[in-house]
């Protein structure tokens, strides 16, 4: 038995027929083929599946697809494009904040949400704010540098932040 849901994904209206047990991440990856959102664990610990639901970061392995009905979901594919990167995506590249790239989409989505809540964080606040996203490659050093630099740049250019916000 399937349940019909309507929601917005990356600014586009989407209609899905999902089972009651379908997770949001499964709906994104398997129904919509938005494979930029990754699954790195099965205990809601790693954060690789982080997306934005109505503007707040959510671990999409921890939310049922039916719970996302009538919401606005933004995934990494909707944050920016190779031609027009979100400042956080650009900062990760600039500071070598990624290696294998698997945790990166979730890390970037969490970092964007972090700066929305705290536009001018200290290093300790960035580290605490990203505690729910595990990276095994970078040792976090360059991720933290990327987020701090992105915060500085977005403070310096608030219009750009609004354009992407």
């Amino acid at each position: 038995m399937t349940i019909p849901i309507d929601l917005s994904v990356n600014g586009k209206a989407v209609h899905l027929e999902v089972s009651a047990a379908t997770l949001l991440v499964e709906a994104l990856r398997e129904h919509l083929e938005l494979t930029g959102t990754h699954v790195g664990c099965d205990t809601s610990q790693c954060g690789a599946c982080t997306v934005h639901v109505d503007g707040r970061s959510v671990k999409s392995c921890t939310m049922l697809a039916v719970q996302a009905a009538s919401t606005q979901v933004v995934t990494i594919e909707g944050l920016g494009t190779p031609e027009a990167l979100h400042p956080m995506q650009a900062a990760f590249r600039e500071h070598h904040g990624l290696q294998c790239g698997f945790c990166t989409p979730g890390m970037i989505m969490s970092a964007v949400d972090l700066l929305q809540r705290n536009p001018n964080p200290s290093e300790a606040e960035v580290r605490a704010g990203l505690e729910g996203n595990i990276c095994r490659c970078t040792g976090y050093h360059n991720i933290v540098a990327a987020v701090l630099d992105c915060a500085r740049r977005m403070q310096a250019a608030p219009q750009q932040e609004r354009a992407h916000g």
Partner: protein
Amino acid sequence: MADIKTGGLIGQSVKRTEDLRFITGRGRYTDDIARRHQLHAAMVRATVAHAKIKSVDTRAALAAPGVVAVYTGADMAADKVGGLPCGWVVKNRDGSGQAEPAHPALQAERVRYVGDHVAVVIAETKAQARAAAELVSVDYEELPAVVDCRAALASGAPQVHAEAAGNQCFDWELGDAGAVQAAFAKAAHVVRLDLRNNRLIANAMEPRSCIGDYDSSTGEHTLITASQNPHVVRLLLAAFVFGIPEHKFRVIAPDVGGGFGSKIYPYPEDVIVLWAARKLGRPVKWTATRSEAFISDAQGRDHYSHVELALDKDANFLGLKVDTIANLGSYLSTFAAAVPTYLYGTLLAGTYRTPAIYVNVKGVFTHTAPVDAYRGAGRPEATFVVERIVEQAARQLKIDPAELRRRNFIPVDAFPYQTPVALMYDTGNYHATLDSGLKLADYAGFPARRAEAAKRGKLRGIGISTYIEACGIAPSAVAGALGARAGLFEAATIRINPTGSVTVLTGSHSHGQGHETTFAQVVAEMLGIPMASVEVVHGDTGKIPFGMGTYGSRSLAVGGAAIVNATRKIISKGRRIAAHLLEASADDVDFEGGRYVVRGTDRAKAFGEVAFAAYVPHNFPHETEEPGLEETAFYDPKNFTYPSGAHICEVEIDPDTGVTHIVRFTAADDFGQIINPMVVEGQVHGGLVQGIGQALHENCVYDDAGQLLTGSFMDYGMPRADDVPSFNVTTECTPCTHNPLGVKGCGEAGAIGAPPAVINAVLDALAPVGVTDITMPATPHAVWSAIQAARSHKVA
């Protein structure tokens, strides 16, 4: 000879080419791939660590919605699918061969660890397969299990394999026992330690995943798998497991989300999906849940060692004796035997001129997941042994630990240096890295910082480790003589396209290391063309020449050397073509800045013009040259490379909570020449955090019955952003003498140097309260308990 100099693109922190797809969600990992008509597999795994399989009832699973097939170990045995081979075997002390029990992908008779493979359910959807796997009923006759490698050697211990009496896989030695005995006989001081190197789980963020496919019309098998070395997977599966010719077998390792060693090996699931796909005529896909990864990925480390160091009256090292018991787990993974022997014992000289060294290693089977290479692979274990005993000696003899190291370093003028444990170090300058590390760490200012911390009630400590690695694995003849069953060269093809762009096909595999950038920097610089004109292709046996993949910090030192040699062949052929076009002798044509120039004239042809002439050969030296411009090189290294360095950790411990806070971590490394400093620093950062993880957080724990207690990210201490500091990293350079780039490799250094630096710092901090030893990981509970024990001991 290191003859490619820094300059131009080489040595620049060029931003990574591959990033654009990863930061926009357009990476393509195995689980992102959907083959038409694909089915999904779910494993039925052993829930007990040791049992006979009495029966497997698949009826309920077969009747479940969407289920297409359920296969058991008996089905696989009936199809005569071979077991997974061991890629490197070693000899016992008495010259006999090690035990080599079979490792079927699906077990028909007996399970040997929790997570072992009993059956596979294949269904139309992943959810249906997983649900039906729960319906497979396995009747076990449970047997006693043993998980601790010391207990496994005791008489009467439960036996893992009939082929390995007393659970001993091998009893291996290296070094001159007599010379060591003589050294200890004349020693003024002997320092002793019992050390535990804790068991770890690699936990690459991408769980393992694979898709098997078979086309009966062409006979072609395809395996898409998250692997660090697709050709090795193809070789081992084709030759030992399936008996199919390699031209009918393509292995693709697309974007791979980290490996750290754990994705070197062919796994049972690779065999199972390919076998099932062939039986069913449809692609079969499997992706591990993280819970499955915890119980079934090859794990790392797990040693117990007794170490003794002999010193003369002036604290010169005279001899080192090491006895190690290494847990191999239940089955031999591909390099299980090599890691605790030739990648461990050979590194026990460290950075020191210790004249006599002897090591004995017993490799032991237990009812736990297989153990194999994890970042560093033997070298972290060796470095931990050496750097803990050296620090212990400094403490015991009341010598500054930096001074004791300096006194015993291999001197700068002693290279090439033959160690007593088989290796010949080509270059190094251990004084330089230690001095620059100590300066950056403000070692001189530490006593004041310790005093200031004490005023705040905190225990502050500083710890040093100096390490050596053997990377750039490996000279094939040497590896073969030591038991390797494969060569360890690397291959590269440079394909110049008609309009001058370049495709680089490399047998190395990037799963985070940035090859698409670094390799392009080298080729673009050599050819004098923009990096944007160079594309690096890897990870597909259908496209690339036979390569050995990425592990052991070998990609640039071995794979990069193959790329340089192939590019040189291109430049050389281009020179002959250009000479024809310029009506000059090739000897008079120089290649510089992307142009072939007749020496002393302004007559020149751009590289792109020469490439075009090679593919549109209207005006071409047909009598001496073939058309086209594509060259392949296979490079077999002459020696290992020897990265080295000094890591200095400074910690502050809260004695009330036992929490260790790393306040400063400094790494001064010598990786030889560096192509991309940004990428190198990133590798160091990541390695350091894995090393800090081992020292303070991570521990793989089984209970006595063989159930994994640390089977999720809630139970296993993965370092998180707020657990670790930012790092001070710097490099010194003594170029490698035997590869054209002068590079040594940097991928494992952090994981090798950090654990002893952290533990030495923790013990330095705890020394004033009387704590003299602590076992990794030094969790808050372990530290707090050690403080309490020391205090009550003092009171008593």
